[in-house]
């Protein structure tokens, strides 16, 4: 389960250093069951939906990528995308979802 009390686990993979103008690939993974809301318990009760609904990445405060997720995303949602390494700085990643789920991660990149 991913109750609000549980610490969110996220993994982000991106190069620490890049040349200016280089396209870098960013892979992100968040630990989450992504309960669809379509499954039932053995007693026939519907298990309520509990998913991550939004993901966003900002590069030095400017949003460069955003996604809306739906129940058909597999558990532990993996999202891979790319961005242009324009300047050294911080990339911030935010996930949010049902039942108050929220997770953040930040990573540094140096552009040479």
């Amino acid at each position, binding site marked *: 389960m991913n109750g609000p009390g549980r610490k969110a686990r996220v993994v982000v993979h991106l190069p620490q250093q890049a040349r200016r103008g280089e*396209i870098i690939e960013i892979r992100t993974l968040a630990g989450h069951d992504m309960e*669809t809301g*379509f*499954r*039932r*318990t*053995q007693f026939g009760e519907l*298990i309520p939906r509990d998913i991550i609904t939004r993901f966003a990445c900002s*590069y030095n405060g*400017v949003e*460069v*990528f*955003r*996604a*809306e*997720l*739906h*129940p*058909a*995303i*597999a*558990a532990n*949602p*993996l*999202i*891979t*995308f*790319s*961005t*242009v390494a*324009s300047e050294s700085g911080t990339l911030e990643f935010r996930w949010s979802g049902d039942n108050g789920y929220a997770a953040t991660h930040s990573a540094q990149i140096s552009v040479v």
Partner: protein
Amino acid sequence: MRKVVGNAPVRSGKVKLELPPLIDNGNTVPLSVAVDSPMTTADHVSAIHVFVEKNPQPYVISAHLGPRAGRARIATRVRIADTGTVIAIAQTSDGSFWSDSVSVVVTLSACLEDGLI
């Protein structure tokens, strides 16, 4: 799909949707969408949407990107309920829509056969 596209025509081409044609386990299927685009301020892909036709809720993901992405490619892992068609639609900065679809065969479905708790 109409909610995303509206009444605009969707043309095939430019988009390349990749996922395995035969799926043992529909609970986690790797999928990638790449769009042929220069990704400049004047001409770029603004959004990529993925739908799985046979799912109880077909909408899978909508990704919003821009010229700062550099390359119009996303990858994720999805659930697929049954043998059918997976569709990717890309929206470009001039407002046109492009799509690609892939037929897949699923032997173990997500949603229905993922066991009791």
